């Protein structure tokens, strides 16, 4: 029973950062801009969030700064791939190199040449607070606040995309930007905004790793979560709730890896590959996915 609950708890814990980032991917790719750079934005967000938290001891401020730093990095992606019509994949890959590069450069600069920050003393709170007086059962379910925020955000973004006029426009420019333009919608501006919002969400995703799980930023804090989030976005067919459940699935595979890691009958190193293996597997069986029609194609006016 306990291990069952702990699997649920770990699933939620590891999926929360993925959900933020995958939602970012949904926004960006629904508007027609492929965002391979999520990983780089997550690293950026994770570093600046930890840095802020180290010096102000305020995890909420760190969370916000993490998001903002992610959106600043995304700004490059927006300029290059939306306004300058650069290849979106190349631009995204560049971000994946620049993001960590800058993060570790500043990390060295600000933390005496180390490749890790100091550990933070004040993490983001859990839903029932940080006290230990609650029962063991409740203790297992006392998940990070980010788990709840991620769920709320999923709903908000679903509502935004399908129930508001802005969402309608975002979906339109990702499908048929020429038609949207002919109706007077400013495709470039809206796409750029979506990319920036996407960076903000990926930044939050990165922050939530260090502010809830690892409490320190180092080279292994973000190791492929950005790409898993991308996979989740595709697995979830570019919809907010699809992405949400795909992230839960990948979080679950992580939980399995951690849970079986205790038994020693499979090498823990192999087990830690499990989430990545599941990612591959999921993408193989997702079938013909229905990406937004103009996803990845820079929009040029005639």
């Amino acid at each position, binding site marked *: 029973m306990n291990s069952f609950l702990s699997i649920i708890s770990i699933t939620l814990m590891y999926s929360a950062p993925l959900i933020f980032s995958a939602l970012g991917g949904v926004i960006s790719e629904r508007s027609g801009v492929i965002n391979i750079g999520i990983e780089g934005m997550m690293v950026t967000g994770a570093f600046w969030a930890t840095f802020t938290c180290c010096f102000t001891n305020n995890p909420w401020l760190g969370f916000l700064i993490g998001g903002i730093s992610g959106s600043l990095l995304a700004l490059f992606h927006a300029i290059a791939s939306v306004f300058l019509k650069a290849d979106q994949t190349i631009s995204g890959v560049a971000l994946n190199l620049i993001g960590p590069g800058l993060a570790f450069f500043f990390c060295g600069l600000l933390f005496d040449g180390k490749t890790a920050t100091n550990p933070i003393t004040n993490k983001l709170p859990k839903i029932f607070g940080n006290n230990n007086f609650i029962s063991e059962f409740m203790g297992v379910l006392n998940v990070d606040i980010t788990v709840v925020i991620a769920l709320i955000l999923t709903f908000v973004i679903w509502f935004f995309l399908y*129930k*508001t*006029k*802005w969402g*309608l*426009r975002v*979906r*339109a420019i990702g*499908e*048929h930007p*020429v*038609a*949207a*333009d*002919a*109706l*007077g*919608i400013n495709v470039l501006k809206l796409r750029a905004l979506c990319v920036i919002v996407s960076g903000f969400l990926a930044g939050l995703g990165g922050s939530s790793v260090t502010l809830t799980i690892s409490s320190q930023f180092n080279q292994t804090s973000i190791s492929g979560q950005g790409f898993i989030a991308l996979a989740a976005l595709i697995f979830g067919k570019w919809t907010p709730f699809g992405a949400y459940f795909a992230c839960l699935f990948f979080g679950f595979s992580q939980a399995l890896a951690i849970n079986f890691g205790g038994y020693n009958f499979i090498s823990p190193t192999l087990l830690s590959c499990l989430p990545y293996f599941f990612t591959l597997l999921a993408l193989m069986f997702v079938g013909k996915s*229905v990406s937004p*029609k103009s996803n990845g194609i820079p929009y040029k*006016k*005639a």
Partner: protein
Amino acid sequence: MLSRISSKFAVQMREIEKSFGFQKILNSFNIDVEKGSIHAVLGENGAGKTTLMNILYGICKADSGKIFLNGKLVNIKNSRIAIKNKIGMVHQHFMLIENFTVLENIILGNEITKKFGILDIKKARYQILEISNKYKLNVDLDAKIENISVGMQQRVEILKSLYRGADILILDEPTAVLTPNETIDLISTAKEFASENKTVVIITHKLNEIKSSSDVCTIIKAGKNIDTLNIRSTSQEELATKMVGRTFALAVEKNRTKAEFGETVLKIKNLNVENKKGILAVKNLSFKIRAGEILGLAGVDGNGQKELVEAIICGIKSKSGSIEICGKQIQNTSVQNVIKNGVSIVHEDRKKLGLILDFTVAENSIFSTYNLKLFSNKGILNMKAIHSFAEKLIENYNIKPQKCSEYLTKNLSGGNQQKIIIAREIASNPKLLIVVQPTRGLDISAALYVEKILMKERNKGKAILLVSFELDEIIKLSDTITVIYNGSIIKAFTQNNFSKNEIGVLMAGGGRTENYSKDA
């Protein structure tokens, strides 16, 4: 000839110039469109009609020139300004988002909202229904665009403009995709619209429709306004002559030898084919084509023509039934095998399926025959032989510019590109030639040339399957006219015994459900 700038006119354009690169598309173009009129802009492909209207709608910007709306100078920088000035445009290739609903497509960019930008679907629905009832534009607001007919898609496009309060409606080649009856409905909607002192501009290259729909016609040729004529006092021949720039006989000499059909070349029996979505697109279809016969398949786009053709050339699998070429079953084999059995095809989309535009004319001319010893030996191409072969085709088919075998194919005009494909396919000496929309996008002279070639091949004893969405073309060329609707052949007519009206009704699905396949 030019009128003074006045509010009597909905649109007046003055000295419009536009070039793409070194190519001058519009050359100090002037036009006056009177309020409350239906004004046709007639011109061949590439004459600049669509560019002109795109400038009016703010999709592209003129290099110089002025536009006056209702007597006032307006700088139409983008579509938003055009919409604000009550201009609406229905593009030739619809600007609809396939996986959005009809309603979403109509409101996009001009949404009715409650607080915080939340969509007010109910109110929008009410408003749209009001307009659609008034102009009898019947649409299903909740259907997705990908699931509705082309005719309904066009009505959605018109509703989009009317929903935005358009007073000037631009229709770019509106009848290209419609059945004859839908065309009549469209014209009556346009007339209703014009009767409210609103204005319709129709861009077209179809002469016969102008007569029934328009009041005034401006003829555009090579970016210049050749003349503006009152439709009622002008004959079709006169219009054609002005459009092409030389005297022109509209009636094609059929040059049809007496119908003496040979053996059966293509025989299709009880064919069933599924489309990409797994829905039966060709249903229990049977027909045959004999040597020396052109069989025309009339029908609106999307009634199974594509799947039928793909199944014949084994591009997709047939579910059941048989396809025989000269008695040999070929269904569900390979494209290679179909070619080997003497089938050639001229695809509808020449740029995507017929040619590789970045290859030379010579390379394109051997696509189905590169395996012949003559052109390649042990896998190495014999460029000399290929070039002399290409030059021969270029000469025989009068492909311009002369001696263009080294040119990149994309640098040739659409008509000449089409000639390359037809020349190539005929050169492989097929028993069965399949042509899909062979004159689409060609100007009158090129289209006539293509039709003449087809007739010539027919007279030589080839079996030809002609698939076209243009009923006039089918009627002009075919020995046997069949009507396909919803995946089945509804009825067949012979060349000297048909009624155009009846075909039109059948194409729209208004036919008796008599199954033609029984007597095939």
